[in-house]
């Protein structure tokens, strides 16, 4: 299949050159499978095989693109796409900067993150995983939900500047297993990410769920008073917070346009907690990395924050072109974010619950429906979900109703950080919106932040 894809791209390149069209081609192919569970049944079992081709034509400072969902047998349709993009660009308006067209110096093939066994799991295997993950945990009132999503993702690029191409293939699995109470309306979750079939371990999922069920089934939930809390965030919450920080914090284009809470003047200064270090590390296979960006730049580990010191912005090529900045190899579908592990020796929720503590601690594993209230201040809001616990000073554990946190990311990752766990975990952040884009962030299993405000507390679920 790889050769057929590359050959198709070469033929399109030749066609564009024959028509005197300067063009870039971005190929995306997904072969996706998704088994979705709800109310202890398979509510949806679906697969989709889609090929998307984006053709961008350039004419000096003018640029226009045309995308089609197609398949490899439709070369003529793709060539028509070249003609359409070429016609569109004639009528486009010039940019006030020169857009860079990549010039690959060698053909680059990366198949290192592909595992055929994971990509081609059968329906029976997906179902067996879920059956094992919730074995004995379902009741008349406690129902199974979640997803098992896996598949193959191919991206490939070529352009008229060079005969060389880039080709990346990954396989991935994203698994969420949810148990929810039909009457009481609480939910608990365990999530996993896999890069190869051998990563799949439903027993560990079952163990996580069992721990939470012990509390949620037997303890009466309580409404927490609003006010200041020391909060331990779980890995999914940390990854979500990280995503928002990446979205508005480190992007050079967003900063230049006034949307970031970080500034150029802060480069080289301490902005975050000394315990907090963050790198974009494309050498970490678990993150489904791109080792070269779309422009062909070799991607190396790129420090963003080291011991609290902000190291610099990342730049998409187009933003770098517009603002006269140096590109940083970040013209990619996603970064490979890694938060360093800290010093606290805690790996599991059971260990966290058993830790001695001098005051009550609120554990929030997951933040639901986060949004940015004030990007310039890094102010976000979101609600707890999926298994929050109040770990009482006396060692007991209380199940709380959900609460709302409205706080600045500069507080979350700033000097209010009490500790970060040594243990890191992979949090799968893949979105099924549009084209498949397997994405994962490596984050600490737990992070404690002191003195955060709970602005609202539910009186029920």
């Amino acid at each position, binding site marked *: 299949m790889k050769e057929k894809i590359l050959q198709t791209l070469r033929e399109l390149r030749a066609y564009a050159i024959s028509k005197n069209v300067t063009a870039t081609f971005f190929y995306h192919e997904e072969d996706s499978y*998704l088994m*979705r*569970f*709800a*109310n*202890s*049944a*398979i*509510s*949806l*079992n*679906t*697969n*989709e*095989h*889609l*090929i998307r081709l984006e053709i961008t034509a350039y004419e000096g400072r003018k640029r*226009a*693109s*045309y*995308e*089609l*969902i*197609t*398949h490899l*047998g439709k070369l003529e349709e793709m060539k028509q*796409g070249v003609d359409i993009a070429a016609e*569109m660009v004639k*009528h*486009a*308006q*010039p*940019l006030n900067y020169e857009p860079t067209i990549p010039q690959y110096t060698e053909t680059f093939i990366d198949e290192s993150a592909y595992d055929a066994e994971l990509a081609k799991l059968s329906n029976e295997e997906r179902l067996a995983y879920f059956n094992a993950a919730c074995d004995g945990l379902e009741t008349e009132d406690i129902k199974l939900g979640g*997803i098992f999503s896996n598949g193959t993702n191919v991206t490939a690029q070529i352009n008229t500047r060079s005969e060389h191409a880039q080709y990346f293939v990954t396989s991935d699995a994203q698994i*969420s297993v*949810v148990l*929810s109470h039909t009457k009481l*309306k609480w939910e608990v*979750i365990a999530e996993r990410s896999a890069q190869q079939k051998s990563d799949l371990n439903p027993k560990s999922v079952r163990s996580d769920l069992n721990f939470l069920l012990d509390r949620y089934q037997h303890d009466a939930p309580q409404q927490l008073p609003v006010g200041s809390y020391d909060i331990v965030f779980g890995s999914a919450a940390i990854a979500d917070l990280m995503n928002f920080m990446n979205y508005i914090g480190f992007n050079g284009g967003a900063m230049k*346009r*006034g949307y970031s809470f970080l500034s150029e003047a802060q480069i080289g200064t301490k902005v975050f907690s000394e315990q907090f270090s963050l790198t974009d590390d494309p050498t970490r296979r678990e993150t489904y990395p791109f080792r070269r960006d779309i422009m062909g730049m070799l991607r190396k580990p790129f420090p963003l924050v080291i011991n609290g010191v902000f190291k610099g912005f990342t730049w998409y090529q187009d933003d770098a072109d517009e603002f006269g900045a140096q590109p940083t190899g970040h013209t990619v579908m996603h970064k490979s974010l890694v938060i360093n592990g800290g010093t606290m020796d805690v790996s599991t929720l059971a260990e966290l619950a058993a830790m001695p503590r001098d005051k009550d601690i609120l554990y929030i594993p997951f933040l*639901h*429906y986060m*949004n*940015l*209230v004030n*990007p*310039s201040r890094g102010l976000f*809001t*979101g*609600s707890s979900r999926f298994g929050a616990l109040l770990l009482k000073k006396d060692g007991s554990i209380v199940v709380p109703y*959900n609460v*709302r946190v*409205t706080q600045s990311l500069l507080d979350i990752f700033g000097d209010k950080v009490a500790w970060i766990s040594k243990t890191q975990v992979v949090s799968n952040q893949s*979105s*099924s*919106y549009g084209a498949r884009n397997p994405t994962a962030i490596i984050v600490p299993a737990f992070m404690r932040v002191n003195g955060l405000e709970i*602005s*609202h507390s539910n009186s029920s*679920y």
Partner: protein
Amino acid sequence: MQKQLQAQIERLKQAGATYADVRWYPVEETSELVMWNGNLKNAAASRQSGLGIRVLYRGAWGFSASSDLSNLSALFDQALSNARIAAQRVSFPVRLAEKDAIQASFNSPNRIDPFGVPLTDKIAFMQTMDEKLNRPGVMQRICALTFVRKQIVFIDSEGSEIEKNIIEVFPEIQVMGVDPDGVSQVRKFSPSRMGTTRGWETVDMQMFSENADRIVRELNEVMAAESCPKEDRSVILLPGIMFLQTHETIGHALELDRILGYELAFAGGSFVTLDDFGKLRYGSPKLTARADATLTNSPGSFGYDDDGVPAQNNLLIDKGILVGAITGRQMVEEANAKARKQIFDGSSGANRATAFYRVPIERMTNINIDPGEDGTLDDIVRNTERGIILDGEKSWSIGSNREQFHFATEIGWLVDDGKVTRVVKNSTYRGETLKFYNSLSAVGDQSTWEVRYVDNCGKGQPNQIMQLGHGVPVCRFDNVRIGE
């Protein structure tokens, strides 16, 4: 093609399928233009075609989709194979509510096909808008035009065959500036739906020019303003934020699949239970809400849903009492059975998929609030002792069962003793859904009622982005916490 599809459906029935349907998209086209600070940053078009097959086998769904139609039999077989494995884990066998077999077509009303308008004309419009927005105080100015055209052929095993041809136009202008505190402020304009059509003719140059002037003026007012106080006040929501309040805390809360727990693994559930229909006081008696898929000019109107059920206009909340939900054929059967009574009398025609490669789920149509009898905006302000007028969505965050919410808006105007006193920035409000709607104390008349659209409503796994509408008046709610 239709005959081939019907033959495939028949073949699946003979193989044991109790129901099958196919949605064939001969063509779906989009065009997106974005001008940012005078630069045509995005001039993009797309085209796709393909089909999605949904099969019911022993009470379980299977689905398969592809753009490659060279082997139809394999595609249909894959959908049946997916249903067969799903049938190994069934808790409530899927049944579909009765409907009529329909042969029909639907064409969205358009006078000028936006795909027939030359690119140069569209760019000229954007350049004019860019010049209008390029004023002191404006740091970023954006003009975006999105056009969608899709042809959908629906065929099912019950004898329906429906063709839909839908064109949508989504224009928006936006300005952003940074205030003296270094905080970004934003003001946007996208037109409410007027008239009876939804083509290029709705992109009215004069209306956009007037609103370009307005949003620049209001942006500068916000940037010069003090921050919103943190206190309890009456909030007067203009349609530019009331539409989103309705969307998030009435629309999503009343999707029957959420109520039945089908979205608990991701998007969330609803505080509403099956016992609540006909009894729950959702809001004050001034609140009447409906799902109206018959509005001619809104993307929430599509003729027939993806179950093949015709568009309807149904009450959801009648004078404050919950009476209806947003439903498709599957969920109403399950809800009635689980409630052991007839809550729903058939599907309300709200099952939709965003593309040929996604499965239909319950989606909002046009979730509207009926206009009230409390007069114009001026009348409502005059009768407000201590309040704040809010407009423009800036951020929104809702609890997983839609039980509570937090919104930030682009602009706020404080109201004291019946008069607007001053503009405030960083305005926010939060509340608990039922308490909030029960504090509804004034509903504006028809003069305040506008149809707003949502072009990016997300739901489901795999995620689906849907377009829909909200017809809403100005509404006032009392004792609401603002400024957090």
